[in-house]
Each structure stands twice: as C-alpha cells, then as structure tokens.
C-alpha cells in the first residue's frame, strides 16, 4: 500500500506502523461522572466497517508523524490522509 503523507508525499506503507480506529483520539474526560464507562467504551468498543474507515498510522521509520488515514477496508483505497495533530485540534483537543 502507498500512503500519501501530507508533508512527504507518497510513502510505502512499510514505513508505517498501524494502530487502529481514529476514534482513539477522542479520549474521554477523566473527571466525568461516568468516566469508567466512557473509558471502557473508548478502549474496547470499535466500529468494524466494511467500507470507509478512519484509522491511525504512525510514520515510524519516517518523520514520526501520526496520521489519520481514511481507507476503504474492502478495496484498500485511500481517500484522505491528515496529520493526526490537526484532526485532534479539530476535534477539540486543544488545551
């Protein structure tokens, strides 16, 4: 597979380490009343779509960027690649 790194262009997937669902960015609030439950869901419950999937890849042997890659799990077509930091900010993870 080839991943179109937003800073570096097309790179072989061998340079990356796969983590999983990009929802791992949405780490819950530890002080919430139901933190035990929300953390449980955050950690263990995943969608398993046959189709478009947003997922985290780490450019481990490259520039060490975490990326959010939108990949079709049926065809492996990659339609979008973003810096995970940008995604995290967009999802309100700024301090």
């Amino acid at each position, binding site marked *: 597979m080839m991943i179109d790194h937003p800073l570096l262009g097309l790179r072989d997937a061998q340079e990356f380490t796969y*983590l999983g669902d990009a929802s791992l960015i949405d780490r819950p609030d530890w002080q919430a009343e139901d933190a035990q439950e929300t953390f449980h869901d955050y950690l263990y419950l995943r969608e398993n779509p046959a189709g478009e999937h947003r997922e985290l890849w*780490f450019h481990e042997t490259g520039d060490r960027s*975490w990326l959010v890659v939108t990949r079709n799990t049926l065809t492996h*077509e990659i339609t979008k690649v973003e810096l995970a930091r940008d995604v*995290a900010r967009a999802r309100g993870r*700024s301090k």
Partner: protein
Amino acid sequence: MNQINRLTGGQINRNKELNFRFDGRSFKGFEGDTLASALLANGERLMGRSFKYHRPRGVLTAGSEEPNALVELRQGNRQEPNTRATVAELFEGLEANAQNAWPSLRFDAMAVNDRFSNFLTAGFYYKTFMWPKPFWEKVYEPIIRKAAGLGSISFEEDPDLYDKGFLHCDLLIIGAGPSGLAAALTAGRSGARVILADEDFRMGGRLNAETLTLGDASGSDWAAEAHAELASLDNVRLMTRTTVIGAFDHGIYGAVERVQDHLPQTIADKPRQILWRIYSRKAMLCAGAMERPIAFADNDRPGVMLASAVRSYVNRWAAAPAQEIAIFTNNDDGHRTAADLIAKGVKVPAVIDVRADASAVVGAELLAGAEVIGTEGRLGLTSVTVRLANGQTRKINCGALAVSGGWNPNLHLTCHQRGRPQWNADLAGFVPGPDLPSGMSVAGAANGQLSTAQALAGGAMGAVAALNALGIAAKPAELPQAEDAPIALKPFWHVQGGKSRAWVDQQNDVTVKDVRLAHQENFVSVEHLKRYTTLGMATDQGKTSNMLGLAVMAELTGKTIPETGTTIFRPPYTPVPMGTMAGRATGKHFHPTRKTPSHTWAEEKGAVFTEVGDWLRAQWFPRQGETHWRQSVDREVLQTRKSVGVCDVTTLGKIDVQGKDAATFLNKVYANAFAKLPVGKVRYGLMLREDGIAYDDGTAARLAEDHFVVTTTTANAVLAYRNMEFARQCLWPDLDVQLISTTEAWAQYAVAGPNARRLLEKIVDADVDISNAGFPFMACGEITVCGGLRARLFRISFSGELAYEIAVPTRYGDGLVRALMEAGEEFDVTPYGTEALGVMRIEKGHAAGNELNGTTTALNLGLGRMVSKKKDCIGNTLSERSGLSDESGLRLVGFKPIKAHDPVTAGAHLMNASGEISATTDQGYVTSACFSPNLGCSIGIGFLKDGANRLGEVLRAANPLEGQTVEVEVVSAHFIDPEGERLRA
C-alpha cells in the same frame, strides 16, 4: 538416435549444440531449447510419474501452466524439485531427474497404486485413516507422504544468493505477446517510463509459436524487431525471464526475475533470482490466454498434449512430439494445428472435431462429429480410439494427440484484489470482471480479444488510454496487418461414456469420477469441490484444470458454469522459491544486529553475549578457570556487592523530552507524579496502558525546567516512544513539548557497589561534587569527565547498591568503559553482564519484564500508591476498575526454599501447604528466580494472592512440567538491604 524428431526451422541456434542428461541418460539439444522441447526432439515423451497413482506422464503444455512434466533440476545443494521442464531453459551440462518414480521412470513400483484406484478416490485419506486416531501422525501420514509428495529436496543449505529490488514506472506491461509489444511500442515512443516484463526468455508470446504473419514479416521476426526498438529506448526497461507474480494494493506488483537459472555456472556475487517490488502508476495485463484440454478416457498418456503446445514445439522449437499426430478439437484452432503440422511434414492421420458441421481440412482426414473415447500405449501414446458420428468406433494410430478445448484468458492477476471474473459465452470462458486492481487495465487475449489483430489494437489503444490518464500524450503505434479470425467454438468439456478414467487435474490426479463423487456426497460448492477432491490445489493452481472441473460439476448439477461459480486466484502466479522470498534476510542477516559502543571491549574481556531484541549484550565475563556460567555470575555479583562493578546499560531506551510543558506531559504519560520533580533529580516512573495494566518502567531525570531525559526498558524502547508521540500529537496536541529518541546517541554504564563513588571520583572533573551530600541518591546532572568530556550522571540503582549510571556521547563509550576499568583497578572492579544484573535485581526485588508481563497492574506490583489519583494520566481511570483493584489480589512477594538446596523455579505455580495441586487451588506464580550467592540459596519473586498479608507462610511451588514440587517460604521481595541504606550511603 540423436534428435530423431527435430524438424527444420524454428527459433533455436543450431550452431550451438548442448549436452544434457535426463534421468541418467545423455541427450543433445540446441541453444534456445527448453528441457521439454529438447526431450521431445529426442523422441522422449515420458517425463514423469503422477502424484498419486504414479501414472506415466509427458508434457501437456509448452509453458508455465504445465501440470505434468515436473523434474528435479540440477544436483547436490542446487537441486530444485518440481521444476517444470517446459520452462527450464536448456544449458550445457544440464542435469535433470524425473521425480516421484522408484526405482525408475520406466518401471515405477508405486504404479501399483493405479490398480487400486477404486479405493483411492476423493476423500479416501479422510475416510480411511481416521482410526485409530493416534495412528495418523505416527503411522499413516509419514507413509503416505513418502509414497505421494512431489519432488524431494537435498536437505543441504542453498548456496545461492537472492536479492530484492525496487522499481518505479509510469506503465508496467505484463506480458510481451502481440498486445504487450504493441502497448510497449506505443508507451515507449511517448517517452513514458515503461517496464515490460515477460516470464519467457524470448519476447513475443504466441507470435513465436504461430506461423501467422504480421504485415510482411513472420510473427517472430516482428516481435524481434519490436524488441530491438524497445531495447534502444532509455525510458523502457525490458525484463525477460521475469514473472509478475502478484498484483498488490495501489499499483504495486511483485515480480521474480530468474537471473541465473539458465546459466551452466553461477556467477559468484550475483543473485540467482531477484524479487522485485514494482511501483507502477498504471499497469496493463497482457498475459494472453491458455488453451484448455478436453477430458476423455486415459487422456493423460504421454503424447496427449494441448494443440497450442504442439504448435509451439513444432514452430518455435522445431521439435515434433511424434511422427504422427492426430488432432482432437472443438474449435478452429485444431485446424490451424493440422495446417502447421502438415506444413512441417508431420503426418496428421485425422482431425477429430466434435462439431458435426466442421469445415474440411486440407491434407488430413476430418472426422466431424467424432469424439476420442480412449487411448492406448503403456509408456506413451500409440493409438486413440474414436467414436465416429455414426456411432462406430475406429482406432487411429498416432504418437501424439493435439487437443484443443478452447482458450481461457489469463486473468489471474485481475483476481488478486478480489476481482471476480465474468462469463463470456462466445469464448465459453471467463474474462476479467469490472473490479480490477486500481490502475490496471487488460488487453489482448487476457481480455478475451483472441485474434492477433485485436490483440495488437487492444495493446496500443490500452497504452494510449493509460498514459492519457496520467497526462502523458501518446499516439497508438502503427500496427501491421494481422490475422483477425472470429472465435469458432462449440463448448465441449468431456467425452461421455469412456471405459477408463478421464483426468481433469493431472497434477493432483483428479478425475471426472472424483468430481462426480464430490457431487454425490454434496460437495457441490466450488470451494468444497476444490478441498474435497484437491482439484486445482497443486503447484499449478489448476491453470489447465479448474474450468474443466467447473464444467463437469455444472453438468452434474444441471446449472450453467457461471451459476456453478468460479475460483479466483491468489498470488503467486507461479511457484516462488523460498530463497527468493527471503532475499538477503537469511542466517545472521535475518534481522539487524545492534552492538553497543563498547562491544569490542566486552569481546576483549571474553564476554559471552546474548541477544536482547536486535541487541547483543554481554551476559557474563568468564575468567580463566571458570568452567560453569554460574561461577562467573556468582563472582560478578559478590564482587559488585563487595566492592564495585561496571555494567553496560546502553541498550535502555532513552528519550529526550524538551519544552515548556515537558513536566505536564510526563505527568500524563507516567502513572506517578512528575510535575513537582525538582531540577537535578531523577524519579522512578511507571507507565500504564490505557486499560490500567503496567507496561514499562524506567526513570525520568530533570536536567532543566524544560528538559527531561526518560529511560525505558530495552524491550519497550520503540513502543514507549511511539506511545509518547501518540499522546503528544493525538491526545494533547497543543502542549509545548518535543520528543526525540536518543537511545543510540548516548553510551551508558552502571557503576555499582560500595566503592562506586570512590571509583567515579577518579574520573569526574575536579569541579564536580559527587559527595553524598552534594550528589545524593536520585540526583542527576550534566557534568564533565576525563578532562572536559560532557557526560550525564544519574544516581540511580537497579542492583540495590550505592550506584550511578553515567552516560557519554556514543563515540566515547568505549573510551569511558576502559577509563572506568582502569580507575577501578585498585578496587578490583569487575565488569558484569545481564545475568549478574538479573540476580542483583531479583535480590533487591525490582520488577522487570517477567513481572511487567502484560497482565499485572501497579497494585499487583506493590506500586499501587504510586498511581496518582489527583491527575489525569494514561491508564489511571481504568486501573480503578473493580477487577483490577482487588486489595486481596496478586501481590509481588519473595520466596525462599524451606530446604536450602531446593530450587525455586520461574513459572512454578504456588499452592497452599496442603491439599490438592490444581488450577483451581492456584495461589499465584513465580515470575523470576535465580541462585543468590549472597543468600546462598535459590530465591524467587512472583505474584501471590493477598501476598502482602502472607509473609512467613509456607507454600508449595509446583512445577508439573518437571514433576517437581518444593516448599517455599513467603518473604519480602527485598532480600537485600530492605531499608535501602546502601543506596543512600
């Protein structure tokens, strides 16, 4: 007699005669021959025995789809089994042996299996050898394996080199037949970067095997001219002897180039084969088509061949499979074969055409509406029996029968990304479906365009379309006038009512009867049919048999072939040697070897090394007279605790953490608090996974307000860094903090023992105060040593002694360790390895990988109070789950044997002093154990239920693997200096 069946013409070099041996006999052939063509030219039709029934077999095909003619090529450590004689290029001195035959190819004792064929039908092994159960592994399976199987291997190490390579192109063209060459000419002239790959050693595909003309030139001459033009273009890379084996994601293709297989002597230092990874922007599959056989009784006799293969041997290699060749066909290709044979002077006794309305053949008798119902000849065909249109039978003498059942497009690579082929009624075959691998298009016969004119046009137009999509302007190459015959075929799969077995899959010995049996037993789905009968599961992946099997099953179920289903294909297209897959990653090159900067010093000291991940670490340093590792380790431990020892700890992961928010960041990734750690201090830190399980520990040293140095365990250096980057970029993206791994930037040594300070005082520079007051336990600082060399000093202790770790830039590691050893001479300093390190940490009760084993929490480790409840950190929330926070759960404690000589064994399970020993009464387990030279007995640490409250209790440590149970006393895990006075001395 020499080459009795050699004809005139052909694309062989008659000026270069080659000697070769097959099955112990000597033959001659010519440059340009394959092993198969040379054997046929010498009148040899028998080339092997079949897999299951040991039936005599000859070649069926002239290409890589060959199911029968498998031989063991070369000798000794270069012997390669299951080589297809049809693609083995002849070279001077080639040696090949028939396989799967004993004692000889002509008399094979195992052919007795053929007599018992009634018992050896599909599913026979499953049904017969089920009982008694233990017999399968010990008795039946080894015997069956020996009797069946294909070729044998030498059991010697492969002496050849293999390599991997990477190529990039705009357009990859797979196959250099008419469509591939037309595509390559079109693309090559446009200036695009083109790779043209073909598995053959000569480009041209069927053009080399047919008598058709392209314009004024013969097909092979046109191909040679096209090849010459392409070779002159710098932007085109021509790869002969290169099989594209798989289509992978995003335009990546795998290809195997056979660099040296055709050479009599290997060229040293050059790879035998190269596994290429080809990155293409677009790819064109121009792989042609394969002829398929018709099944009839005894259709596997040597001499029964595909008609296209007969034309290949006659036209390209000038080798007649026999002096008289009959033809059995359901389409016009049979007629073309007759014309070619007659033109070469080969006698054609009859053309047997299943079509009642077949048109006449010039120079041969046509038997229209007739079918072959049997064949004769013990080791090779002598005659065929034909059922004529009027129902009468007739025997026709012939040494070979050319069979044509139509053509199947070579769409294998279109299926590698789960593409499903589609049925095409004109061809009575499958063509590529719409779901092609991204960037791929298909042209020529592979796309069902069977005529030469269609193939040429398809190739040229396909290349234009592919390049235009890339924004590269191209115009189609001018194409010569070529044959454009329509498909004239009557679907016909197998002859009904023969007396003997009709073979479907010749490599796995599957017959029409086996398919029928599968149907009878309701294995009607294609996937079941395959697995039950093994149809299509041999090394040829059923290239010549899958369609036939499907057709027979369709007939039995009363469905159409597309309703019955299709099998899709997986990589590799043809078998790939394991050596090619491995490339250079063999032996010590299987993974990289990491050595610390003082590796040479350790070698000089006689160190015994152990692998820790990729690292080599000194395990112990034997001295003269020491005959057992324990002597060395005990000495290193005792000497360190008595005076001083030095240990290389460079392999620990080191991560530099800098930025205004560095402390805030560490507070989030460590379970314990770091925000208030003063500058100049080190703190032990425990990292949790988000699920609350402890996964790594180490230290963080604060060198400045905004600068920490974090250490991780050797094993988790990569993972901890990855996780910290995840926290930094994905969870807290706006913290002002930067990370970099500095594991390889610093060489680090532990200096431990009561004389550690006195030793270090001799090498630190004069202005550095390392007195106990000036540099107390858990102090850290940037200092200079040896007259100005910058260093980092940490007063931390894994051994439990007064100890330091000192780090210098990597290139000074060797110098530093030598300086430490020299300075330590007066204290009788000892280097110590990972074993002594392990003994001392067990004596001290420090957790390591055995304790942080992926199932244990901070609470289990006795570090529960470290987990801060006042802050957010990874793992904090879920570590409080009831299942993980049981106060009477597992706790880290120590164990001493009641009888001093009893061993405590890591992995032993703890049981109460009396009662049953079973999983249900399990009280915990020993994680680490060693002989403690300080206590004079074996000791261990491990996890015990409610351990903190059970000190003094006697338990049994059960080790059922070795049938050993010893009594142990539960003690504190801190065997040495539990108050920590030595650390602070």
